[in-house]
């Protein structure tokens, strides 16, 4: 199911509390998600870089109807898509008050055996 080998560096980064993203060695373009080639130029020599964890909220939703039992305990929860300062977009949880355009910073929480991203407002105290 999971593209384990392809995005292993991303998952290893998450486990250590780092946000990693792919960038093309030929044209330098950063990209969202894990791919076999560069979306901008088609180059196949890609490297993983570490983002500074800061970004701008691109989209948000508050999920009331959770898709599985484990998430029903958390509902309602807020999901945001954040455009990282380096360019790629990334999904994470966020505080209910978050709005499109807000500046946010990544932190991490453990859930169902994984380390996941939770964004908080820049300047707000860490939740954990």
């Amino acid at each position: 199911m999971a593209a384990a080998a392809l995005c292993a560096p991303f998952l290893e980064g998450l486990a250590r509390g780092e946000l990693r993203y792919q960038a093309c060695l030929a044209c330098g373009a950063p990209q969202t998600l894990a791919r076999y080639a560069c979306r901008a130029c088609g180059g196949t020599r890609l490297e993983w870089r570490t983002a500074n964890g800061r970004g701008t909220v691109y989209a948000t939703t508050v999920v009331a109807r959770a898709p599985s039992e484990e998430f029903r305990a958390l509902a309602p929860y807020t999901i945001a898509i954040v455009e990282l300062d380096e360019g790629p977009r990334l999904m994470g949880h966020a505080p209910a008050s978050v709005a499109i355009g807000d500046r946010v910073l990544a932190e991490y929480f453990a859930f169902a055996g994984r380390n996941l991203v939770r964004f908080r407002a820049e300047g707000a105290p860490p939740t954990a």
Partner: protein
Amino acid sequence: MRPAYILGAGNTSFGRHAGRDSLDLMAVAAERALTDADLPRTGIDGVLCGYATTAPHLMLSTLFCERAALAPAYAHSVQLGGATGGAMLMLARELVRAGRCNNVLVVAGENRLTGQGRNGAIQTLAQVGDADYEVPYGASVPAYYALLASRYMFETGLSEADLAEFAVLMRANARRHPDAHLKDPISRADVLASKPIAAPLKLLDCCPISDGAMALVVSARRSAAAPVAIVGAGQAHRHQHLTAIADTSNYGAREAARRAFDESGLRPADIDYLAIYDSFTITLAILLEELGFAPRGGSAARVRNGDFAPGGRLPLNTHGGLLSFGHSGVAGGMGHAVEAFRQLAGRAGDRQVASRARAFVHADGGVLSSHVSLIFAREA
């Protein structure tokens, strides 16, 4: 290449069909389509079928053929999410145009509601998200579309009250169809007050999960009574996952439509009936606007103006769409095309709108990921 016509259509009602499995439902719709097309089983030399989440068989098409006593010269199933029906019709047309087949049965059905229950269906569907970047955050299909909606509404000024217009229109249309799943009348206030699912989407912004089946026969034969040809088709696939969407003014719908229009030699202004995928109210708003049937941010104004009503300039989903006719997976996405065919052929019964000659059909799969556009034209 020779032309390809739609010769007949069939469907089950949508809603609950407890005790019937996907093949049972497909068989009923297929039988009705054959009767409607006035074709014997032996006349079918091609079979295309969709997939069913409740019947994940390796060879659903030939399993269906065995049960339905069909022995085609060409068969397989197709998987493209909500765009599967459109993709099957496009392929059926190509098979006929190329001379590979004379009569292609396109069929899909699923007991998506009673075969696994709502919770099971919601959990299955959520897996269309990226397994490592999206699914672990508890995102559901409504949540993916809600995220899309939040951004689109931020950019265009479209409001929740605007989206409610589409839910009300689809319900009013479904009330005129004897086979629709949801027929209780609803108002804009009901939509706005319905329970939250994934903000800004509420229960009545979302299509129901239904049992049901649809079938069409695509043929080289021209029906003397009301010949409806498929005169253009196009696809576009720009992303799979929500996170990877690059541009909210270009999801791929316009690109697919341009290919279909170019092939048909028609222009959007020639279209007089719309059959547009509507998994959520936001889906319908975005597609109508990207396809150019309403200005960006202006689709609800056209609903309020009555333009998309059965008596308006561009009747839209007169069967009630996924939002109210119902969504049983691939068959749900075929419902729009079935209704477009019936309206053009003058076979829509009590729902028949004033004479229509050219329908534009559009479906999307995933999260506005896969796009298929078709153009149907009635010949004089």
